[in-house]
């Protein structure tokens, strides 16, 4: 059944026009040349009172049987580029039944998925012609957010194969990862729509959009990205700002060190590794963030403990509970390399060692034994 449907999906690409006539209905947002509210499903931050106006780009998306569809760029009132968008009409076929899917897609300046608007006149439908519920749109949104979805690396027929049944006694119900993963990520009864939409969003156009942005890139855009809440913008900015721009924007960088996702944090700390020895005082906000950051980043931070101020080293002795075993060992190694350990640090160590709730208390006990 499924294989037949797939055959039809391929077949229809050639005969679509004949079957459907020309597609006429357009997504409701087609006429929108100004965006005054955020798209309905959207991942970026939308500042109140924003109005974006449309401008053309040379980019287009070709869909089966419909042809080229324009990709536009929305700019703000200072002409700064903000968002790419395209009104898409594309056929989707399943089980011998074909329909047009209408959707307005949005991409970030780096070509990542930004969101979509549905068409009120032409809602998305499932296998049995039921219309998408609002929750189904949300699920689609979640799927499109995942640039590493399983839909990327499997042909559609591979997504619906069942694992072979178990031949001998033992563990059952180990459903094949594929089927389970797919079930969890796509709208039930709308695998084909989801598949088509995902490949539209994450297809070739991604790279083209990014390349188009890079052509126009300037410092202002980078700084805007740095200040965005969107991780890929933050990361791109961090990767592309030069040393001087890092300095100028240091307060935002150190704020991101605390608030960003672990990947962003670890990038920052690796990128600024030299600053710990060269300008220890500037790095104080980093040390202040120690208890709030993830374990991997904390390990990277502790690699620089030899350059921390005495006050910071003392302060860490009050935060031993947050350290993992190896981090604690690293810290103790630092203390061990010092000629003297202050009485305040010693007091904190003793207190920690005496606790019977602390998993790593025994390490401090051993350290105190060796260093007394």
């Amino acid at each position, binding site marked *: 059944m499924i294989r037949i449907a797939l055959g039809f999906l391929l077949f229809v690409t050639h005969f679509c026009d004949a079957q459907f006539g020309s597609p006429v209905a357009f997504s409701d947002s087609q006429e929108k040349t100004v965006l005054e509210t955020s798209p309905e499903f959207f991942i970026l931050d939308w500042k109140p009172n924003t109005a974006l106006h449309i401008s053309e780009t040379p980019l287009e998306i070709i869909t089966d049987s419909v042809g080229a569809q324009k990709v536009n760029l929305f700019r703000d009132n200072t002409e700064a580029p903000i968002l790419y968008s395209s009104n898409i009409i594309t056929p989707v076929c399943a089980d011998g039944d074909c329909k047009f899917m209408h959707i307005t897609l949005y991409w970030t300046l780096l070509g990542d998925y930004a969101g979509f608007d549905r068409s009120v006149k032409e809602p998305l439908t499932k296998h049995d012609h039921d219309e998408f519920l609002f929750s189904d749109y949300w699920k689609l949104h979640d799927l499109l957010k995942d640039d590493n979805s399983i839909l990327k690396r499997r042909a559609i027929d591979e997504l619906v194969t069942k694992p072979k049944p178990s031949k*001998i006694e033992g563990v059952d119900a180990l459903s094949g990862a594929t089927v389970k993963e797919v079930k969890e990520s796509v709208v039930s009864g709308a695998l084909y729509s989801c598949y088509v939409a995902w490949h539209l969003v994450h297809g070739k156009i991604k790279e083209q959009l990014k390349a188009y942005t890079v052509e126009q890139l300037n410092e202002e855009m980078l700084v805007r990205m740095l200040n965005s809440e969107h991780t890929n913008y933050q990361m791109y900015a961090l990767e592309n700002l030069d040393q001087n721009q890092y300095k100028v924007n240091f307060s935002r960088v150190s704020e991101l060190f605390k608030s960003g996702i672990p990947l962003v944090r670890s990038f920052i700390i690796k990128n600024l590794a030299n600053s710990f020895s060269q300008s220890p005082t500037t790095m104080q906000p980093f040390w202040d963030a120690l208890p709030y950051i*993830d374990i991997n980043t904390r390990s990277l931070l502790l690699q620089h403990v030899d350059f921390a101020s005495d006050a910071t080293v003392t302060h860490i002795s009050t935060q031993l509970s947050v350290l993992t075993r190896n981090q604690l060992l690293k810290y103790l190694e630092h203390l061990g390399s010092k000629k003297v350990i202050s009485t305040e640090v010693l007091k904190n160590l003793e207190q920690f060692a005496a606790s019977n*709730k602390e*998993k790593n208390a025994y*390490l401090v006990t051993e350290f105190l034994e060796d260093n007394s």
Partner: protein
Amino acid sequence: MKNLLTVLILFIASLNAVAQDILLEAESFDNPGGWVVDPQFVEQMGSPYLNAHGMGKPVKNASTAVEFKKSGTYHIWVRTMNWVPGEWEAPGRFQLKVGETVLDTVLGTRSGWGWQYAGEAKINKKQATHIELQDLTGFNGRCDAIYFSTKKDTPPSSTKKLAAWRQEITAQPNAPEEVKSYDLVVVGGGLAGCAAAIAGAEQGLKVALIHDRPVLGGNASEEIRVHTLGIYGNFERILKKIDTEHYPNGSADAKLDQEKRDKNVKSYDNIDLFLNWRAYDALSEENSVKYVDARQTFTGERKRFTAPYFVDSTGDGWIGFWAGAEFSYGRESVDTYGEHWEEHGELWSPKEADNAVMGSSVLWGSKDTDSPQSFPEVPWAMPVSKDYSEVNGEWQWEFSRNDLSQIDDAEEIRDHMLRAIYGSFSSAKKDEVNENRKLEWVSYLVGKRESRRLVGDHIFTFNNAKEGTEFPDGVVIETRAVDVHYQTVLEDENNPDFISEALFYRGPQYYIPYRSLYSKNIKNLFMAGRNFSCSHAGLGGPRVMLTTGQMGAAVGYAASLCKKYEVMPREIYTGYLQEYLDLIEEQKYEKIPTSKK
């Protein structure tokens, strides 16, 4: 046999100056009962130990009988640990029974491996004293050794001091007394090691295959249950003897292929199989491995293995490490080999090198039954599993963290996974749809993906895979997509830290050169398996087990040519490459036995 050795150790101990002291290694118990012998972490904690892996149901008592030379009152210590100290009762609690008396002290409650005082007992030398370990929880209580002494001096806890103390108390000589000589010594019986042994043996080499488990296959074994992926390349005939079907990872179907694999490897007369033997040292002189020392994991018996050539297929590159081979660990910076992949940026290859690697897994599964099944509360597991709720695991159950070495901290990694599993299952049990669900199987072995990579004459990189570089000595062929894993918590801190995600790169067919299969600086050392010579991203494709199996077979053949010309592995590339490639080509076909010609 076990009995004999336990007694032997005790006898030696009794000859020692401190005649009233006796060290009883738990792994040498006459009858381990429901406890399993766990030798995975000997390099870190000093010895194999008994582990009460009952998945929540207390396991049957382990027992043994000890003959004391002197009657008297003995102080007793147990080397143990509380594997999750915290604001709850220790998960792995047990008690010790000496003779007819169960000692009051609840054991398994001290943090970090070390000696816990168990109490004292009156011992009569006239009859053998019966010793038992009584598990209280079924949640991985651990007992390494029991020490009886008429004096009340606690033995040392630190691993270094303990090793010396152990050696002194058991009066062991430095070198194993028995020396065995082979043409080729293969250490580690995963797919790579099995294939190397078979290929070498088929070419007439006398081979020793040293493997620390009772069954062969490494991650493919019924003990870990990963199915083999990849293609057969040049070695279909051999690899079909040891591979698996494509069942879901963790499936009990792994048992079927286990029988096939073990039977096939055992069918070679010139492979001496040392199952349950773990290599613990190797020595090199003038940049050549002279010998590998190994120890029986239950009895402690030791042997020395000498050979002109060695294969390190331990996964963790142990032989290379001990012999002083160059190795690497962690992710190289993106510039080291230019392994950039725009789409995934830092997640794929970092701007600056770091210690991140793909993590290790513990596979597990449950099954539905006809009646309600209970599962205990596991407060000590919840800080790891949080609100995750699951009834089965798959490959994504994987754990790595920059501050943890997949080798040195493997026990902590395994334990973290156990907490993730028990906690998630316990949460799932709260849902009434799972009322009849029973936790069926949880591995206690860590399935590893990445740790030490030994450095060869060529370092295989992602670019070699991406570009399908055609090497003159490309003896391994693969078509499978490259995939590298990362922990999803790196992107979203709300995710559980034990779940990973894969980034797939679909490229052309690619090749691994022979030069990546022998050490750059240790002349007679081959490596096959995930510890072959590659970069972090380079390991992304070839780590799967048919590819690693191909590596094994390739080095087995190379070793036979090395012996024929009495040369070192490198010289096969520089002087005998064509003959080597012809030999590989020829082996594809089953030879017609002379009797049938």
